[in-house]
């Protein structure tokens, strides 16, 4: 059980694909001007990532390692094609708001990165958990930044107008870069402090045990 907990925490926080590893930046910067499209992008990536992790880990003994990258790309491209048809048919609003970035999920580094680093070495259940936790980490990061950018840049939340005050620059790519950079800095600062506190606590505990043993 502890293994799954570690995979989940790594995907969500300690190895968060958006803030800690800075992967998949193109859709992030292109879509966080609106919270709805940012969250839609996150959920689409979550589905594609989980399915591709499951398929690749199930096929990991069949795929020869010399041609693994083309194989992964074909699997991911097929999944993205299915996802695009599904969204076009059932969620046309989301399909329109994602625009060109929907096809670009194929070259999203998070999906290929997880396939290469995790799914090709681990079992189906672990890979599924890894896909879901990484996808959720990506979705959460995008939604938070989408809310910040849309609230300050357009004065609305998920399309509902809230206030008249707006800083138009934050709803453009320039603002997306600024908000993304500041969010990474804040996230890294918090995680650093948290880990330092954990380390200090562990050291203190070890020292007390040592003193007890000596006495």
């Amino acid at each position, binding site marked *: 059980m502890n293994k799954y907990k570690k995979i989940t925490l790594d995907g969500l926080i300690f190895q968060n694909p958006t803030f800690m590893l800075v*992967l998949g930046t*193109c859709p992030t910067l292109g879509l966080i001007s609106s919270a709805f499209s940012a969250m839609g992008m996150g959920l689409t990536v979550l589905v594609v990532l989980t399915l591709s992790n499951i398929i690749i880990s199930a096929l990991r003994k069949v795929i020869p390692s010399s041609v693994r990258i083309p194989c992964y790309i*074909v699997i991911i*491209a097929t999944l*993205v094609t299915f996802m695009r048809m599904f969204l076009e048919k059932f969620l046309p609003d989301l399909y329109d708001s994602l625009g060109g970035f929907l096809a670009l999920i194929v*070259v999203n580094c998070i999906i290929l990165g997880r396939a290469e680093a995790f799914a090709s070495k681990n079992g189906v259940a672990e890979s599924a958990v890894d896909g879901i936790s990484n996808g959720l980490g990506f979705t959460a990061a995008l939604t938070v930044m989408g809310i910040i950018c849309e609230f300050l840049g357009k004065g609305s939340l998920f399309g509902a107008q809230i206030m008249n005050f707006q800083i138009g620059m934050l709803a453009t790519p*320039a603002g997306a870069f600024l908000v993304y*950079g500041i969010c*990474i800095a804040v996230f890294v600062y918090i995680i650093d402090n948290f880990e330092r506190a954990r380390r200090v606590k562990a050291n203190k505990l070890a020292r007390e045990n040592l003193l007890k043993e000596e006495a």
Partner: protein
Amino acid sequence: MGTFIAIVLSAVLTNNFITVKTYGVCPFLGVSKKTSSAAGMGIAVTLVMLLATLVTYPIYTYVMVPLGIEFLEIIFFIFIIASLVQMLEKIIQKVSPSLYGAMGIYLPLITTNCAVLGVTELLIGDMSAILGEGVAMNIGWALLYALFAGLGFTLVMIIMSGMREKLNYYKTHKALAGFPIAMVTACFICMAFTVFSYISI
């Protein structure tokens, strides 16, 4: 002539791939620490974009549309780009080892570059806003757009690498060092490029 100017201005300045469309940001942040490597990456991307357009656009127009298999475009395009990059790498390695030494390390990275797939997807879509009325899309305009989009990408890469080389002289807070400060720098470049959106063609 009007279409030519419109495509050049739009691809390089008003619809720049990095600052307006945010395609190809991963190499923009990853390989922009030194001007020489940024220029090498930019030229490699331009070359691959041009070659990819040269192959994918005719295949889409003359093979996939008549056969009615447009929905397979993503699989076809990514496969064409991946094999092109592999082929280009082998050819350069054989023909010019010195060029391979300068550019070879960037080529494998380009397969997963959004800018290349982005430009091929963009060119098969609706381009009438840039071409103007009564001008039909053809392979010549497509190649021109791909070439200048690549040059616009290279331009922003070089500007960014120059600014990042200067940034090395200053001390930044530990949490801001690395990607965050690069993104704040990129924010200023984007703001500068906003000026070009006032160009109306």
